[in-house]
């Protein structure tokens, strides 16, 4: 299908951005009309993106500033994976949001227009990150993502939300500034910013310097000591790592839990945070290349942080009583699984990281949606308040249970596959620190069992003599919320059983065969 015009890439990004702006600037009078319009835009964009993933036309250069600096979009293997993930989740999340936001915004349609407008714009920007085929384009969309998600976190306008938004902005913009340092170095010493699997830098082992893998036309090659280049990688890792919530820079994520659930579920478990992990995967495998980084401090220091974050996130989740914040800490931990996979720096590790990126997206969005359904339906936000709700909201808690098991890594569910992949990659790398990482994965699985099952058990098996009549009035939410649960549960089981197919595709991507 090589005859598909690559202009569709631009349309895929512009459609939600312009559509979202339309909803923002010309608010609908009736809520139903807005919902239909928003859902139509989302589904169209998703369809377009999935179609482009299948067709994979050549990349398109939208603007070229200088030969090195251009804005160009086009899917490669890894871009496809991320785009597929968000395109799959976004329509369901939007559907869920229609019901949920009724509870959050009251009858204020204008406020809802703002919300849905930015929600749709964010979709376009996220697809831009997935589709970016060079570092500059990705950086531009990355900064835009920071800005367009601000109104979503700020939505409730409470003091808490303001503080959360500020923290988010400072962390993200600051992180991007350090990511930018990496961009500048790569553009200067790599001669190009394009993403090429295996990296665009060449490690000259005899002199210990790094130079561009492809010389410029004039033939001059600037070289740099490898140690400095590795330091620059650390800048990039921790810069982009802000969005991926690596340990000392993770505090914005639990705070951002004040946002409405569709935002925490989709953005703070999938789009925004995965964009951070995605950016790190990009610079590791597609810009620097593992050749330079492997077996140096540029691998060990970040990996130590990732391993620590895996345990740290889980233990914070166990301590936390607020359900959404608990899930946010769980996200912190799970994001570091992805980073850990990435830092193993082998194709197997990359496949494991991508695998967890996909599966964690589905699992976490499902558990967040369940938590959101509880909040919307009952107004209860804390773990100790869910007692007995399992009987009144069986479908919700069934879905929650499945996602809990999956997060823990119970076989036959998708969480198991990705953890297995990560562990396998770690063993295969014969790297001492990666072995420690396996230990961290095990500890984390145990802690995950504690913090997730605590909720499940409380919901289904309250203390003896629990007074069910007190929660008589609560019931499962409407179809718009239940449908996404159902789909996600089917996915988790499906991926769990037919996981090898997915893994085959992912390892093809990691080996550059796709």
């Amino acid at each position: 299908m090589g005859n598909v015009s690559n202009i569709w890439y631009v349309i895929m990004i512009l459609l939600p951005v312009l559509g979202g702006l339309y909803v923002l600037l010309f608010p609908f009078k009736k809520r139903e009309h807005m919902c239909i319009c928003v859902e139509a835009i989302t589904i169209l964009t998703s369809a377009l993106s999935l179609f482009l993933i299948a067709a994979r036309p050549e990349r398109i250069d939208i603007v070229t500033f200088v030969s090195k600096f251009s804005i160009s979009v086009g899917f490669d293997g890894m871009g496809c994976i991320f785009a597929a993930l968000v395109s799959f989740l976004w329509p369901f999340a939007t559907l869920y949001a229609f019901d949920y936001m009724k509870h959050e915004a009251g009858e204020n349609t204008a406020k809802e227009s703002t919300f849905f407008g930015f929600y749709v714009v964010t979709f376009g920007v996220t697809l831009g990150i997935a589709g970016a085929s060079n570092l500059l384009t990705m950086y531009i969309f990355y900064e835009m993502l920071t800005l367009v998600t601000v109104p979503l976190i700020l939505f409730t306008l409470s003091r808490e939300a303001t503080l959360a938004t500020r923290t988010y902005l400072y962390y993200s913009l600051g992180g991007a500034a350090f990511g930018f340092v990496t961009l500048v170095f790569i553009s200067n010493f790599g001669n190009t910013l394009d993403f090429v699997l295996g990296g665009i830098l060449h490690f000259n082992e005899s002199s210990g310097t790094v130079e561009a893998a492809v010389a410029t036309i004039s033939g001059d090659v600037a070289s740099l000591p490898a140690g400095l280049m590795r330091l620059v990688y650390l800048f990039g890792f921790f810069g982009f790592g802000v969005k991926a919530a690596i340990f000392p820079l993770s505090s914005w994520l639990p705070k951002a839990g004040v946002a409405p659930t569709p935002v925490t579920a989709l953005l703070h478990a999938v789009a925004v945070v995965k964009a951070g992990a995605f950016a790190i995967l990009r610079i590791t495998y597609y810009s620097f290349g593992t050749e330079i980084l492997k077996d140096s401090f540029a691998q060990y220091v970040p990996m130590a942080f990732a391993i620590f974050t895996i345990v740290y996130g889980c233990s914070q989740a166990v301590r936390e009583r607020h359900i959404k914040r608990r899930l946010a800490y769980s996200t912190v931990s799970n994001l570091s699984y992805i980073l850990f996979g990435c830092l193993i720096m082998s194709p197997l590790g990359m496949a494991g990281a991508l695998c967890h990126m996909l599966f964690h997206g589905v699992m976490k969005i499902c558990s967040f949606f369940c938590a959101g359904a509880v909040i919307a339906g009952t107004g209860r936000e804390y773990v100790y308040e869910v007692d007995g709700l399992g009987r009144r909201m069986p479908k919700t808690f069934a879905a929650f249970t499945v996602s809990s098991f999956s997060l823990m890594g119970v076989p036959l569910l998708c969480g198991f596959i990705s953890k297995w992949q990560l562990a396998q990659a770690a063993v295969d790398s014969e790297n001492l620190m990666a072995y420690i990482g396996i230990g961290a994965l095990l500890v984390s699985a145990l802690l995950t069992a504690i913090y997730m099952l605590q909720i499940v058990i409380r919901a289904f098996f309250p203390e003896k003599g629990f007074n069910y009549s007190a929660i008589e009035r609560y019931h499962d939410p409407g179809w718009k919320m239940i449908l996404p649960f159902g789909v996600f549960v089917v996915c988790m089981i499906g991926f769990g059983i037919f996981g090898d197919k997915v893994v085959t595709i992912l390892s093809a991507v990691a080996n550059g065969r796709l």
Partner: protein
Amino acid sequence: MGFVRNFPAISILICMFAAIISSGLPRKAARLLNTLVILAVFGLSLTTFIGCLQLGEPVVYVMGIFPAPWGNEIRFGVLESGMALFFSIIMLLSIWGGRHKMKDEVARDKEFLYYVFINLLFSSLLALVYTNDLFTAYVFVEINTISACGLIVIRENGRTIEAGVRYMIMSLLGSGLLLLGIMMTYDITGHLLMSNIKEAVGGIVSSGESLVPLVVTIALLTTGLCIKSALFPFHSWLPDAYGYSTVSSAAILSSLVSKGYIFLLIKIFYRVIGFDTVKSSRLLNVLFVFGLIAMISGSVSAIRENDIRRMIAFSSIAQIGYIYMGFGMGTRAGMVASIFHILSHAATKSMLFISAIGLTDVSHGSRHFIDLTGSAHRNKIAGIGFLTGSLSMVGIPLFSGFISKLQFMDAAVSLTYAKMLPALIVLGISTILNAIYFMKTVLRIYMPIEKLGANRAQADVVTNTVATPQRMGINGVVIEKERITLREEKLYGFVIHLFVILNIALGVCSNTILDWIRAGIDMFS
């Protein structure tokens, strides 16, 4: 080139004569004359700029009848004419943007004086940009100082008089050092024309004699201009001067006056001393260090500030730090980055000052953050201006600030490690600090106030009664909602639109502009 050769001299002269004529004109006529003069200078500079681009080499224009070593000269290339063009744009926008505030800020019978000062200031700026004579430069530096001081004190309240006095003291100190430097230059070279001095300096360097006086001279010239352009340890006069003067004055002072001095310094580096000589004197390292400190300390002060105008003023200190850091890198790339940042900062900072006034106008004239809550909803266009300015300052792609940041980092990458790592790290930290205070303000002004609904009336009362002089900044007089005519409102909106367009144009067409800057630097030597 033909007749166009005369244009720079004409533009300086018409500004001077306009200043003289304005002193006898009524208010409205002076205002009209001022606008016409700036528009005329815009046209003349544009023609000169295009002429220079086509010619591709600098033009020397002899003032009067005496030839080189004795007479006075004007010398201009792409950079000089481009800078004059840019200055005229910013000048016009700043004055238009502050026009509706003029009747509150300046006594009606003194308004003509304001235009006298503006014309004088503009003529001196143009002269600083164009002149090829060091002593002429000094004379216009003084004219510049005095008219800038006039622009500060014309508001006639305690704060501005104090600020004006401070400005005067610091500025005259700077001028004094500059004069000493020029004197010593004359002493060791025997010339006042820049091109002749450069030849003589070349002789001194190659002969190896009287090198110490040369270094002292460079130090004196640089320090003098650093004080005048408010580099870090000499910045104490700046927040008050920018914070309390009229809005047009603040915009002009921050984006033009300090830039005029910096441009003169660039000229001294390239055309008087020679950049290689300056580099070998290691003076640039000092500028580099102070630039870095300014970037951090300016931003930290801005974060601690609770008054929006003063916050923007403190941010200027940080931005001037960027420019000096670029000088301090001692490379061509660093200089290109600095010159681009001069443009970018001038365009952004004046926009921020003009937008801030729109925000304070709808907040009972209070500049305090608490009262500014939600002001962007009350004055949408000012909100957009402030948002654009802030995003540009933080360095979001597509705005001019991003290109500055990119250029600075690009320049930093090719330095030695001792300079590279500090530059990169401080650039990163400074971005975070910028994000902190600008984003804090943006969130504040976009926070809808309806939530406070019930407290709104009460809040009004509080604003009016708690308005201490310190908090209000201006004599404790609460400015009631001013009468603003529709026409002025339209002009204001138009100006903000132009600013936004200018900013994005700088960000998007940066390649062409950078090429011009490079061509201009080549024409210097």
